[in-house]
């Protein structure tokens, strides 16, 4: 049985099912990160003292990671635009670049975490680090999840392009929406954890 409304638009919603699905999922993600942000505010306000992020964390490294993640958002949207233009070769290049940017982000994060672990700064060290590891750890899981989906569309999932290019383009748009959301979360995490 074919999945309905993967390509054509539903009259009542004006959307295909994949798009409304991913937006509802993102809405739940907003609440997940929102709950953690609210917890962070509560813990920070309730604490008798709170360190500035830059006294503990590496700001230049995080700035580099911010630039990497923003760049990956651009390559992601360019991958979708390439499919809209029916340029599959360019799609592969841009999607490959998006995955590589994600990998660079994770490698930098690995070095950041390793440094903290080496000097005994574990989540149990203080509230600041507990919040830092929780928020960045959850964000990192999202980066990994997005990379897995993108890698699928770069590799085996791309077969769909041969038989139904519009459906494949829509799928890439939906994975792109998730990837941009991951970028969006980092845009708020970066100043709140590292700079304030």
């Amino acid at each position: 049985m074919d999945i309905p409304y993967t390509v054509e638009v539903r009259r009542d919603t004006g959307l295909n099912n994949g798009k409304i699905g991913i937006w509802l999922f993102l809405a739940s993600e907003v609440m997940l990160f929102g709950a953690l942000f609210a917890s962070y505010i509560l813990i920070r306000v309730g604490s008798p003292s709170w360190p500035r992020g830059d006294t503990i964390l590496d700001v230049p490294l995080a700035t580099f990671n911010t630039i990497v993640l923003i760049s990956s958002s651009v390559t992601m949207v360019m991958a979708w635009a390439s499919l809209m233009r029916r340029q599959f070769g360019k799609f592969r290049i841009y999607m490959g670049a998006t995955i590589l940017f994600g990998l660079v982000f994770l490698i930098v994060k690995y070095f950041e975490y390793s440094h903290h672990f080496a000097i005994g700064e574990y989540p149990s060290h203080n509230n600041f680090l507990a919040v830092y590891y929780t928020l960045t750890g959850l964000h990192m899981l999202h980066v990994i999840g997005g990379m897995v989906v993108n890698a699928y569309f770069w590799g085996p999932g791309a077969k769909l392009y041969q038989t139904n290019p519009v459906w494949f383009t829509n799928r890439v748009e939906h994975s792109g929406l998730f990837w941009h959301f991951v970028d969006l979360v980092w845009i708020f995490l970066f100043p709140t954890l590292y700079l304030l």
Partner: protein
Amino acid sequence: MSSDHHDSSGHAAGDHAADIDKHVRVYITVFIALMVLTIITVAISYLHLSVPVAVTIAMIVALIKGSLVAGYFMHLVSEQKLIYAVMALTVAFFVVLLALPVLTHENGYWIPDAAPAAAHSEGAH
């Protein structure tokens, strides 16, 4: 739309090359804007402003950056009404969620420096 194949935005996929070219130019502009705003965010942090001022500026810049990503990369500027409805509901609940700590905190202040009782709180952790 005359094409048999439409994507969820109502665009006819593959036959709007000029539209896509215009989109790509917007993406590049947004990318440059995001880079500039990132540099501004970091530069401001080196000014070592007071916490309330720093939080306010950082959140305003982050909101602008977030709006650019959501508006252009996620195509929210030209979405269907149902997506706006979902987002409006999400934003409403998100605001309530963030307001909870403010409402439940005993003195109602969410910035330590602004709270008279916690004026001494800045410094060592």
